[in-house]
């Protein structure tokens, strides 16, 4: 599992649009770089899908390609309506998943 961090508010008023920021360590190896010593292409290994859910329902997602920088940053918005739990999922092409959760109380 890669190392991920999430900045999401813990409290909000109903109707507030909050900003969520995420960052994860990942080389995002594009598959176009060559090994300096052997000259061989370093195989591609990227995170290709990011998903954000609230109480189990997806509200935002992103498809990532080789052009996304290493240690990808992703920020997006969410309209708070009720209390619950966020779930953030990073899925890489090898099938590995990193998951982070965050609770929010909405008054």
């Amino acid at each position: 599992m890669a190392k991920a961090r999430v900045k999401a508010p813990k409290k909000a008023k109903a109707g507030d649009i909050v900003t969520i920021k995420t960052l994860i360590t990942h080389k995002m190896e594009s598959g176009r770089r060559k090994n300096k010593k052997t000259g061989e292409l370093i195989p591609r290994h990227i995170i290709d899908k990011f998903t954000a859910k609230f109480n189990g329902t997806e509200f935002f997602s992103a498809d990532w390609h080789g052009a996304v920088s290493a240690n990808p940053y992703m920020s997006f918005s969410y309209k708070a309506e009720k209390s619950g739990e966020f779930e953030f999922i990073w899925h890489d092409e090898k099938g590995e998943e990193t998951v982070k959760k965050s609770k929010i109380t909405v008054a």
Partner: protein
Amino acid sequence: MTKMTILKRSKLLAAALGGMMIGFGTANTVVADDLAAFKVGDKHSGYVYTAKETRALQDDDFENPAMLWVEEGEALWSKAGPNGKSCASCHEDAAAMKGVAAVYPKYDAKNKKMINIEQMINREIVEKTGGKALKWESKPLLALTAFVSLQSRGMPVAVKTDGEAAPFLAKGKAFFYKRRGQLDMACKHCHEDNAGNMIRADLLSQGQANGFPTYRLKWQKIGSLHRRFRGCNKNIRAKPFKAGSDEYVNLELYVKSRGAGLNMEAPSVRR
């Protein structure tokens, strides 16, 4: 080697540097007032020579990718070594490291030479936790260095350069001013004579060390000062020394003395 030839060579270098700059000319992009925190008299942190989008990455602890390594370092701080001890066992929490990175490299009475922060961390790992020394540029060493260096953030660089450190400072200073490599250049040609000028599309900095370890956009990860020394030496087609070598530790002492008083910014973000 005749005198005539020496003159020709240095004139050529001036021409080469000038030629490299003619495409862009001198570009004084050093902005005055809002960067006061990053300057001490004529000394300017690398932050001053960095594009504003890159600065924005450093300014926010969440957005700064280097913080991912700091988090890792924080976890390692409490991780027990083979003998059951961790950094935390003796030092308790990170606050014990406040001001530490700002004064390294230090004179080491045991080996009778300078020791820098990465070497000190490794010494502690080996002697106090029974572990094996971490390889230079390895993830755990970078993480611990970033975590320890962060504790000095905002404090002035304050390496001791007198007493036992003096002869090593002199060696580091000699390195800084010595021409080397196929391009026959010294650190000073870029970082003293041309700081603030363009070298092709790059704005030259003063080569300060207060931001290391740094997340370099080029490396797409965090890296040590010695990695940068090696890169710079390779750029002028000089054989690089090993990270942790006496040459680089002495150079580190001298470079830090040039930046004495500048605020520690580790872990910074640079291009």
